[in-house]
């Protein structure tokens, strides 16, 4: 039986791991290579790395660090952050990553998704969508890119699917780092209208939250940041991952 994937999402900033709250308030978590080693030994299902500085266009992709990270892992890895060109995708995949996450540059030109999927296969291309509530609580696609209005979340998600994305990484900015649970309504809306897998991200604080995203929200996989880098809400840094039994009880 296919297990629900449970995926730690790690944020890179200037060669270190950090964690955010609502995409701000960066707190230092530790050394990426040692953290990866620990997650590898804890046998996590999959890992996602997002380079914040590269994503904001402030730094270029740190291939050397990515190589060191890929060397440590015996599970699938996904990289996101500033990927704008098909050559970059090829380079990162060659280092040992399975998937690339496209966000800003896919919004600027969805054709990038198509070209990448054609060359490397849809299963290697994840489109990451950050959602934030605007005035009156209306959810919008959040991006730093100065692009034309990408439309509401569902429109863009469907566009990404049509363009060839293999998966959607759906991230709630409002819930990021809050431990308050996923945005189930948002997840449901997207999963009900797409045929490709959706990975839920943003707000997970407990194993029950992970389960809800799948059972109530229809997510194919669940991702979390804070839950897997802190001991508890508001407490100290501690790289951790649920045991196989816990995952079995809550998800499978």
């Amino acid at each position, binding site marked *: *039986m296919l297990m629900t994937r449970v995926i730690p999402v790690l944020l890179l900033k200037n060669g270190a791991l950090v964690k955010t709250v609502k995409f701000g308030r960066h707190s230092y978590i530790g050394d990426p290579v040692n953290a990866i080693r620990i997650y590898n030994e804890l046998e996590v299902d999959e890992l996602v790395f997002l380079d914040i500085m590269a994503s904001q266009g402030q730094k270029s992709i740190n291939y050397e660090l990515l190589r060191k990270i*890929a060397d440590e892992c015996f599970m699938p890895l996904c990289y996101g952050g500033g990927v704008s060109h098909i050559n970059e995708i090829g380079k990162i995949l060659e280092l040992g990553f399975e998937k690339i996450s496209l966000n800003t540059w896919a919004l600027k030109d969805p054709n990038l998704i198509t070209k990448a999927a054609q060359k490397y296969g849809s299963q290697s291309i994840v489109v990451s969508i950050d959602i934030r509530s605007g005035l009156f609580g209306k959810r919008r696609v959040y991006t730093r890119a100065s692009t034309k209005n990408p439309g509401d979340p569902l429109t863009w998600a469907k566009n990404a699917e049509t363009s060839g994305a293999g998966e959607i990484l759906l991230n709630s900015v409002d819930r990021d780092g809050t431990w308050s649970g996923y945005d189930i309504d948002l997840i449901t809306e997207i999963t009900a209208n797409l045929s490709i897998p959706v990975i839920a991200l943003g707000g997970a604080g407990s194993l029950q939250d992970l389960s809800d995203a799948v059972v109530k929200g229809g997510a194919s996989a669940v991702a979390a940041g804070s839950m897997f880098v802190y001991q508890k809400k508001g407490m100290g840094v501690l790289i951790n991952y649920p045991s196989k039994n816990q995952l079995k009880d809550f998800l499978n």
Partner: protein
Amino acid sequence: MVQSSRITVVNYGLGNLGSIANMLKKIGAQVEIVSNKNEVEKAKKLILPGVGAFDAGMSKIRSANLYSTLDNLVRVEKIPVLGICLGMQLLAEGSEEGEQDGFGWIPCRIRRFDFGNLNESDKLKIPHMGWNTINIKENKPIFHKLDREDTQFYFVHSFHAPFDPAHNFSYATTFYGYEFASVIGRNNVIGTQFHPEKSHKFGMQLLRNFVENY
């Protein structure tokens, strides 16, 4: 104790070679990644990786001038060969995904996942992506220490080898909507649809079995 046989990983332009080599090194095997015909033909034990489309795979093998070398290694020299993911699919006669013929070392054709016979609510997403378990059908050395309840591997594919109980080339099956063959084999050739190099200790055990028992 690991045999000191050399494992040749064929680089024909597709596949996660680095990860395979990393895992082989971790289990203490001697690894070489080669792409040149002259180097490939010296192989004593070989891994054929691959990620991507069937025709792309066969085309690249032909344009790298490796088709007859590989065919000879399997049919004449009879060296042990392990195909992974697309590499497994190329061992077959052909695929619904493409026009070209495969190597035909295992007599089956690769098919697309088809949930047409299932109820709407049971229809599943394609590709089959994530961790899944295997049902061992043939007791082969490749499965040594892997017949445990928690054994699972990482899959990511849209096409699969069919499970055919009438023939014994389906070494193990996996359930995704229906049973399909996740490990196929015949004589000196084995193929895994999943990625051992991305499957933690289970993948490590499988590669160790390939290194030590073949």
